[in-house]
């Protein structure tokens, strides 16, 4: 159990390029924090710096209040699970798990006890005498986790541990790791590029991009209130739809307008917000589930989004429609139905969940809470054919 604190951590490669810049993060005791971002965003570098495998150029790293910048990995009381398992190929499963304890000169009986216990927890007791090459991917992953468990570290570090597993096993291991974390209650930092893993596993999510932390918050907070267009687009699957247009003053008040595209009169509650913004470019964000959902269909006055179906992805419980309209391509998450490619559709919008972003800075404009507050009562404000 440990508290981890990163203050202004940076990694400079010396030629002016930063892998991580000014990272601030406090991880509480027993918390499960997920670092997520696209490839090359610096999440693995940040994890390696916490592990002591990469030098920290600037800032301070504290574990339980103790400055650890220059402490070797072995003295940081951490254990790490690697993407490709990193099991020692020439050692049996038991020896792999016992290796770190042997180095620490733990008594043989104690080593045996801990290895047996970890093997029992992970259900790999029958594999202890095998070599890693005789194991399946899932079993190897369990052994890698077992090797971390026997150490009884204060912090667990996971570096994309599930990315080499097939989809079904990944879901299973995801649940098992989360379950294990609940049982052991150890602080854990988990790196992934998969936003689904991040959403389902993390107590808190840290979204990174180009070495910078974009947002640190609980999963639903990030989903509902992304701080910028990048976070909004990265978290959520399928990704949020963005429509670039203008805020324009019309006879009926303020509206979101795309030349030859969408024209959406803004609800009353947003008039003040629009007034403050003034006329000019703005980006509208719509989650796929907002378009064509059952709830939206129930509202006869819901504005409609017109488009032509390009691709259909039936997933069983729901269907993803990838549609083209004159000015933009968008995705809708709808219920099963009689959809066909090339079909012209007019899907109703759940207009209670809109996101607006500054067209220049991509920063989220804080209107959502106000919109939510007015929710249903304001839906009538959208004209029937405002979306064309």
């Amino acid at each position: 159990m440990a508290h981890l604190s990163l203050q202004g951590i940076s990694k400079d490669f010396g030629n002016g390029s930063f892998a991580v810049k000014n990272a601030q993060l406090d991880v509480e005791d027993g918390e499960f924090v997920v670092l997520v971002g696209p490839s090359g965003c610096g999440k693995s570098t940040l994890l390696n710096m916490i592990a002591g495998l990469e030098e920290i150029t600037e800032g301070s790293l504290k574990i339980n209040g103790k400055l650890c910048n220059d402490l070797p990995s072995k003295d940081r009381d951490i254990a790490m699970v690697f993407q490709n398992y990193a099991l020692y190929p020439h050692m049996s499963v038991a020896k792999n798990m016992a290796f770190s304890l042997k180095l620490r000169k733990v008594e043989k009986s104690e080593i045996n006890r801990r290895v047996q216990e970890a093997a029992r927890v992970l259900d790999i007791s029958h594999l202890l005498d095998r070599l890693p090459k005789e194991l399946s991917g899932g079993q190897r992953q369990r052994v890698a986790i077992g090797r971390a468990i026997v150490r009884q570290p204060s912090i667990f570090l996971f570096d994309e541990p599930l990315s080499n597993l097939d989809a079904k096993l990944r879901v299973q291991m995801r649940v098992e790791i989360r379950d294990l974390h609940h049982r052991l209650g150890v602080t854990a930092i988990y790196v992934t590029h998969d936003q689904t893993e991040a959403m389902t596993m993390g107590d808190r999510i840290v979204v990174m991009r180009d070495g910078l932390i974009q947002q640190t918050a609980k999963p639903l907070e990030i989903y509902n209130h992304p701080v910028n267009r990048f976070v909004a687009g990265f978290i959520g699957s399928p990704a949020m739809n963005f429509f670039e247009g203008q805020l324009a003053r019309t006879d009926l008040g303020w509206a979101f307008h795309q030349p030859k595209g969408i024209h959406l009169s803004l609800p009353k509650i947003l008039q003040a917000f629009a007034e403050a913004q003034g006329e000019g470019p703005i980006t509208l964000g719509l989650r796929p589930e907002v378009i064509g959902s059952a709830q939206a269909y129930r509202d006869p006055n819901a504005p409609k989004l017109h488009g032509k179906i390009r691709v259909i992805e039936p997933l069983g419980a729901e269907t993803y429609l990838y549609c083209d309209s004159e000015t933009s391509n968008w995705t809708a998450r709808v219920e099963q139905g009689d959809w066909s490619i090339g079909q012209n559709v007019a899907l109703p919008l759940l207009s209670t969940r809109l996101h607006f972003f500054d067209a220049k800075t991509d920063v989220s404009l804080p209107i959502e809470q106000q919109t939510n507050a007015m929710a249903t009562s304001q839906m009538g404000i959208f004209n029937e054919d405002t979306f064309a």
Partner: protein
Amino acid sequence: MTVEKNIQTQPVSLQWPRSEAIPRPWLGLWRRWKHKKLIWVYLVLGGSALFLALPFYYMLVTSFQSTADLARNEISLWVTHPTLDPLRKLLDGTRYLGAAWNSLIIAALSTIGNIFLCPLAGYAFAKHKFPGRDQLFFVLLSTMMVPGAVLLVPSFLLARDFGWINSYLPLIVPGLASIFFVFLSRQFISKIPKDLIQAARVDGCSELRIYFQIILPLCRPLLASIGILSFLGSWNGFIGPMIYLLDENKYTIPLVISMLQGRFGGQENVQMAGSLLSIVPALLLFFIFQKQIVSSFANSGLKE
């Protein structure tokens, strides 16, 4: 319908008697052989193998022929009266066993040195970052372009200045860390995933322990290649011993074999017995490490 069809087609098939009727057992074998298309490949490979094996066979046969038989048949591929006389003459009349011992010492020390030092250097080049690493490696590699003969005189002068003439040192020390083996090691070790080393570091290994307990055990095929190549190179070395060794007691096997021509001129059987004995260690090494050698040459550079 089906029955009728069968009845109709039966006489037609009878017009073509099946080949089993004629007793030709090899035909059955030929039919069952699955790799017919490869027949030319087998013929060429088999022919080449025979061609290569012929000198060894001739050496083997001649080694057991008496001098009298040898005189009668100029080139014989059969032993009519096998005898151990040539072997006896060789062992009694020359310092062959002493030379074998000398060769063994030199080859063993060179091999141990190469096995110890080359993977160590290869590990540093493959997995550690230090200023000028790639430049240094390039310089080392470029020395491989220099022909050995060019280095002969400077090496001799250097050995003379060190006072190493007539000792084994110039035969062992300069070859202790062969550039070729360093290169081979670097290629092999660079294929070992970085994560293994990092995992060991997190587990609490020191740098040396990482090398000896994690890297080295994974390098068995590499060590086998280095061992075999280094041993054979040293065991068969002729120019070096000829230049540096003056005292006959210190001579190595290739030198003794070369002297057989003078001492046993016309007695090819003794010369061949000397050659035959000299390949025994190489054969032994090959049989012992056969599996490792094949896998190391096949995947040289690939991790297990």
